[in-house]
C-alpha cells in the first residue's frame, strides 16, 4: 500500500459521519408485514374509495357543500373553511396540562405509546389530557440536526377528539405510512383537541404547522413539527411498537 493509500484509509477513519441509527426495530417491524402488499395498493384503494364517495355525495345537492368542507381519518376530523378561526401560535403542549408519568398514563388510558427508536433516551415529558390521548415532544435527529416534534396518539375512532380547521390554501393530501392510510396537511391550520364527554376544546386551540396523520389499527397518530412531508413520513415509519424505548 502506498503512502497515499494509507493516508486515504486514515482519512476514512477520521470522517465525521452522522450517528449510526439503530435499524433493527424498524426492519423487524417491516418484515412482520406481508411482502406482497405494495404501498401503492392501499393508497390507490383509498383514493378510489374517496373518489367514489365524493362522486356519490356530489350527486346529492344538499350534501355538496358539506362534503367538500369536512372529512376525517380515525380520531381526527378536518374541516376546510374560508377563514381560519381566531387562534394563535402556542407551544406544542399548550393546554395539555401537567406532564404525567408515561407508564401510569398508558395503564390508565389502556394502550402503550408507540415511539420511534430512542436509543435509550425515552421521552422526558408525556401528557395525557383528560386521559383521552397521549402526547409527547420528541427531540429527533433530522438531517444531522435535532428538531422538536409533537407526537399525539389517540385511541378509538371518535373523530371529534382532534379537529383541524384548514383554509383554502392549506394542502391536505393522501399519504401512506408503512402501507397504512394517512393524510399530510401542509400549511397553517388550527388544531383543537376536544373532549368526548364535554365537547369542550378550549384552551387547546392553536395555530399548527404541517402535520402528518395516520391510522394504525385502533390508534390515530399525529406528528407535527417543522418537517417536510418526506421527513415526516420517514420518521413516522420508524414509529412502531418495537421501536419504543
Amino acid at each position, binding site marked *: 500500500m502506498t503512502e497515499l493509500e494509507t493516508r486515504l484509509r486514515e*482519512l476514512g477513519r477520521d470522517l465525521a*459521519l452522522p450517528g449510526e441509527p439503530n435499524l433493527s426495530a424498524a426492519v*423487524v417491524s417491516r418484515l412482520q408485514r406481508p411482502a406482497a402488499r405494495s404501498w401503492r395498493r392501499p393508497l390507490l384503494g383509498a383514493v378510489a374509495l374517496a373518489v367514489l364517495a365524493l362522486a356519490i355525495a356530489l350527486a346529492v345537492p344538499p350534501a355538496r357543500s358539506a362534503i367538500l368542507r369536512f372529512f376525517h381519518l380515525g380520531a381526527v376530523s378536518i374541516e376546510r373553511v374560508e377563514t381560519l378561526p381566531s387562534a394563535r401560535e402556542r407551544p406544542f403542549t399548550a393546554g395539555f396540562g401537567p406532564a404525567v408519568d408515561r407508564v401510569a398514563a398508558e395503564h390508565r388510558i389502556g394502550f402503550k405509546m408507540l415511539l420511534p427508536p430512542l436509543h435509550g433516551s425515552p421521552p422526558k415529558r408525556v401528557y395525557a389530557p383528560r386521559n383521552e390521548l397521549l402526547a409527547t415532544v420528541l427531540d429527533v435527529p433530522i438531517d444531522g440536526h435535532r428538531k422538536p416534534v409533537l407526537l399525539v396518539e389517540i385511541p378509538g375512532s371518535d373523530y371529534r377528539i382532534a379537529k383541524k380547521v384548514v383554509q383554502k390554501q392549506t394542502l391536505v393530501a393522501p399519504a401512506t405510512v408503512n402501507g397504512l392510510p394517512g393524510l399530510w396537511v401542509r400549511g397553517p391550520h388550527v388544531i383543537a383537541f376536544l373532549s368526548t364527554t364535554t365537547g369542550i376544546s378550549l384552551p387547546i386551540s392553536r395555530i399548527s404547522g404541517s402535520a402528518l396523520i395516520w391510522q394504525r389499527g385502533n390508534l390515530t397518530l399525529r406528528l407535527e413539527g417543522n418537517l417536510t412531508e418526506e421527513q415526516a413520513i420517514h420518521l413516522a415509519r420508524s414509529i412502531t411498537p418495537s421501536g419504543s424505548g
Partner: protein
Amino acid sequence: MVGRPLDESELVERARQGDEHAYQEIVHAYQGIAFRTAYLVARNAADAEDAAQEAFVKAYRALGRFRRGAPFRPWFLQIVANEARNRRRSAGRRDALVLRAAASEPSGEAAPSPEAALLESERREELLKAVETLPQDQRDTIACRYFLELSEEETAQVLGVRRGTVKSRTARALERLRAVT
C-alpha cells in the same frame, strides 16, 4: 446448556428459512457498515438511513436467491449502494464530507507539536477536498476501497462493475489525487 454463537453463514441460512431473530442479528451486525455505505453514496443522513433500512428488507426478501456459501457482505452492500444511488439521483441536496473536529492521534506516539498538528490537519483537509472533486465513479470507488476498506472484489460487487474496472478507476483516482496533493 450454553449454545455457541452462530456464524454468519448459519445466521443467513436460518434467516433464509424465515427465522427473523437470526436476521435481526444480521441487521445488528451490519447496520453500521450499511449506514456508512449508504451515507457515502447518498450524502444525506435521512436518505442513508432510509436506504439502509430498505436494503435490509429487500435483502431479507431476496435471500432465496442468495447463493449458499457466498459472502453475505458484498451481496448485501450492493443492495444498499443501489438503494442509496436511487435516492442520490432524486435528492436535491447533498452533504459534503467533513472531518471530525479532533482526529485520533496515532497510538504509541508522542503528541505532535501544535504546528505539526495544524500542518497535518491541513493536509487531510486538502486530500478530502481533492477526493470530493473526483468524478462520481472514481469517488465511489475510493470510498469503497479506502473509506469502507472493502477489497477490490467486494468493491466490484458493490458498485456492480468488473474487478478490472475497479482497478482502473482506482489507479486513475490515485493519479489525480497525487497530482493535486
